[in-house]
């Protein structure tokens, strides 16, 4: 279970929060002009990154505020918490060496080394 540092309430257990998915997806400014493919991209297509991901969280059983979290999806480390509307911070993360491989930390699985 994750421990999330709500910018308004401090560190709380993940059970109090709900994840709102990938952050920084902008609602199209000109909806009537969008093609079906562009709508599909906005509504359904996701980066689903293995490694550093920026995502939205809501403290739904607490202050009910939204905020952004930078988390490594390969290790579940939370690297930063920042406010809605802010640009994502520049961060170093323990990304896996190979695209589908295992990270150096936080995994009990086998590791794949670089050729």
């Amino acid at each position, binding site marked *: *279970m*994750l421990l999330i540092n709500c910018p308004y309430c401090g560190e709380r*257990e*993940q*059970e109090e929060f*709900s*994840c709102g*998915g990938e952050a920084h997806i902008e609602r199209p400014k000109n909806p009537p002009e969008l093609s*079906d*493919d562009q*709508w*599909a*991209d906005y*509504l*359904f*297509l*996701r*980066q*689903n*990154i*293995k490694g550093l*991901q920026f*995502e939205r969280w809501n403290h739904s059983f607490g202050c009910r505020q939204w905020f952004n979290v930078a*988390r490594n*999806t*390969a*290790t*579940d480390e939370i690297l930063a918490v920042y406010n809605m509307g802010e640009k994502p911070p520049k961060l170093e993360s323990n990304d896996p060496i*190979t*695209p*589908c*491989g295992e990270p150096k930390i*936080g*995994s*009990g*699985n*086998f590791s*794949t080394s670089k*050729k």
Partner: protein
Amino acid sequence: MIKKPKKYSVFSLVRNALSYHENWQPAWRNPEIKKNYDAIIVGGGGHGLTTAYYLAKNHGIKNIAVVEKGWIGGGNTGRNTTIIRSNYLWDQSAALYEHALKLWEGMSQELNYNVMFSQRGVMNVAHNLHDVRELKRRWNANRLNDIDCEWLNTEQVKKFCPVINTSPNIRYPVLGATLQRRAGTARHDAVAWGYARGADAMGVDIIQNCEVTGINVSNGNVTGIETTKGTINSKKIGVVSAGHTSVIAKMAGIKLPLESRPLQALVSEPVKPIIDTVVMSNTIHAYVSQSDKGELVIGAGTDGYNSYTQRGGFNIVEDTIMAIVELFPIFSRMKMLRHWGGIVDICPDASPIISKTHINGLYFNCGWGTGGFKATPGSGWVFAHTIANDQPHALNAPFSINRFSSGELVDEHGAAAVAH
């Protein structure tokens, strides 16, 4: 060349017993990688191996490589709760899963490999008025699609599965259930091993410990893959890599409507036979069956966030166990032995994607989310057809990637929600 494996039979068992079981041969080869293949399957789980098997068997394409990052069946194929059923709501899904269920029924014979398919029935329990209406709707839809399904009232549920708590005084009382008697369970490892052996016997190269690191595309045609063991060329590549599909797709510049999440399961200490069916409940999110070894096999839910860590939050396990203990108070003193997670790729409409892409020769079979095991043979069957003919089989035409642009979604959240 390829030596046909010896057929397993009672005689081979006796013969090998007499030689102290020291002369069993490997079930598949450990081949040298060739430079060129007619088709490459990325992912050596159940769906990938069945794809290779049916490409060789139904379409005569035998020069195939199955490339697997880890070992055969070590991913979600060996991590699921082995439940097989076809009681889906919509015609498109019902047809696909029913096709798979029919293949399950003849699988052990066809493969000469005992996959321990046991049609012990799957019961979906209703706990409130909404459940009753939804499940009755699904029961009627199944009957219209020629899929066996029955409605049981509370007394019939108790008779069919005596350990279930049917007291009207629990928080979510049992108001009835649907029962698909042809549904059941199978041994998941055996499915991977059986298809690996069958495919290998037809000349398919199964390459383990080989991770794909890139997809080569030139002028809109796929030309091969980069792997940790070098470049392999092929004009047809089928990606069947479950939780890691988005990562592989990114190598070809494709974005998919998938989110990868941990899905957990756990098994108890082994006990004497106590539950001879599979019980599922969407409302309280619990499902349980008993393995041949006597362990209770319990499936939990997915975590509410994307992750590739193959472990989930403890709160999810706690919620599931609470539900199980309410429904089966007899299990309250059982000890849990093992617990694990697998990474499942979830589509927005809880239906799979079995599709061509805008890159010629690149195909995706993904998005099975929390319930892909039951479809293993059917998925391979239609995906092999899609790869061999460069067009979908009638059964997987509705599961094209284009449905997210056209809006023709196959919304199976009701039938897929819990029942993995």
